[in-house]
């Protein structure tokens, strides 16, 4: 997204990186990351926007400190967003998408429209789900933000576990877009985690 010629990132992205780092590696490590980035702040506001170099700087420092490639960190973060008890909101919003994993994948066609209703300025890459032969489903991501692919891979793995589905994932680039290819090996491999459409309290079911 562009504001006054500067690329900006919605605060939820930085906030997610902050929460992921603190919940996974502790507050001390996050402080190290922040102090290594000249423009970083200790706590990000999910509802404000920040220059996108900030997000890249944070990610690069985290990668340097953990000695782990950016792609792996983003994949871990995707998993974190679904499975960590501090983040139950994300899992729930995704589970509204469908009764089983296949249903859920199909609902991702509506993902951008849903996000637009909730956070119109978030601007995630356009997602397009294509059902191929038998158990092949591919997700095509518009080329606006290449790191998003790894975040998606983490989320997809975690959601498959949540639905009790067994999947295999592969990804490749195709004419600028990223394509994540999902093979649904068994959609009832394990018992799905519970999900209620309306839950009392902040994190339930």
């Amino acid at each position, binding site marked *: 997204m562009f504001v006054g010629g500067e690329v900006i990132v919605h605060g939820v992205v930085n906030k997610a990186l902050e929460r992921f780092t603190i919940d996974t590696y502790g507050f001390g490590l996050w402080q190290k990351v922040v102090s290594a980035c000249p423009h970083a702040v200790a706590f990000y506001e999910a509802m404000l926007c920040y220059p996108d170099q900030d997000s890249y700087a944070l990610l690069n420092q985290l990668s340097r400190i953990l000695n782990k490639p950016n792609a792996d960190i983003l994949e871990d973060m995707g998993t974190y967003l679904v499975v960590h008890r501090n983040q139950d*909101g994300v899992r*729930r919003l995704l589970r*509204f998408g*469908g009764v089983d994993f296949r249903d859920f994948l199909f609902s991702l066609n509506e993902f951008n429209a*849903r996000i637009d209703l*909730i956070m119109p300025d978030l601007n995630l890459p356009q997602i397009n789900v294509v059902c191929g032969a038998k158990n092949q489903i591919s997700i095509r991501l518009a080329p606006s933000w290449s790191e998003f692919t790894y975040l998606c891979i983490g989320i997809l793995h975690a959601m498959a576990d949540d639905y009790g589905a067994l999947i295999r994932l592969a990804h490749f680039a195709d004419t600028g877009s990223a394509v994540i290819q999902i093979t649904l090996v068994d959609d009832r491999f394990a018992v799905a985690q519970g999900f*209620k*459409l*309306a839950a*009392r309290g902040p994190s339930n079911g």
Partner: protein
Amino acid sequence: MDNILNILCPCHLIINRAGVIEHVAPTMQKILQGETARLQHVLDLFSIKPRSGHLRGCSMFELDGQKFHLSLRRFLDLRWNGVVLRLQDRDKAIIPISFGMALKETAECFELTHADFGPSELAVDMLCLLEAQSAVRAASRAVTQRIEGAKKNAEIAALTDPLTGLGNRRSLIERLASFARQNISFGIIQLDLDHFKTVNDQLGHPVGDRVLVELSNILRQEIRAHDVAVRLGGDEFILLITGTNDPTELLGLAERLLARLKPPLTIQTHKVQLGLSMGGRIVEAAERWSMIDILQAVDQALYHSKRRGKGRFTFCS
């Protein structure tokens, strides 16, 4: 046909001309939690509020085509919407039920799932949006609260002298403006330390800073809670004595301060002998005064004290 109806609209009832329930669709069955609704009169299970008038006896069937509100008699606070539609054989009518604004509470109360809604219903999307919206609202509220807190702290910081915690010049201007607005009398004393430069030169600035903090504590102790002590900068301070037009009050305060500074102050390992020079006046509410004039007057009175040999208070009228 029944099966398609159950899939398309899984929350409906079918009644006969007498208003007796002949069929309960799956979601309604789940909501009734095993209670047998079939062959009961619809009004025995539900409280029904038609759009106009009252419902009498068996006239349910007569509502053909009309919308109404309904609630389970056991859950009167869940207000749903229904409509009576006569079926082709004219002896039966279907009542499709939607949960309206009670959707979230209903889904919560009866633990409804995706399967309890029809494939063309927007209920699940609405629940998803409601949940997302409330999360976004909570996040926005949190930002507003944090900004509000930061703003308050910034306001306090903007009016505070960081070294001594007393008010600063900006807070003096605000207080004087508020006295003018409220039209009240007050006393004002300007004071500065004698020999402060010598302390800084001989013992260093950190000791000088400690002296200023000590003096601030003494000022705070000697004024009343609603009076004001301000550090203008350096070793210059101003005291505002609220709501008085009595010069003896200022003289009394000045004497107390001189007495407090008579013995040397102990700063770290140093004994520091200081003195105070002061100038003050009373500002009457009825007087037409300006901030510049008042500050100039007390500054001149202070200067007078200095010239007459320091360690004293000069009152100007």
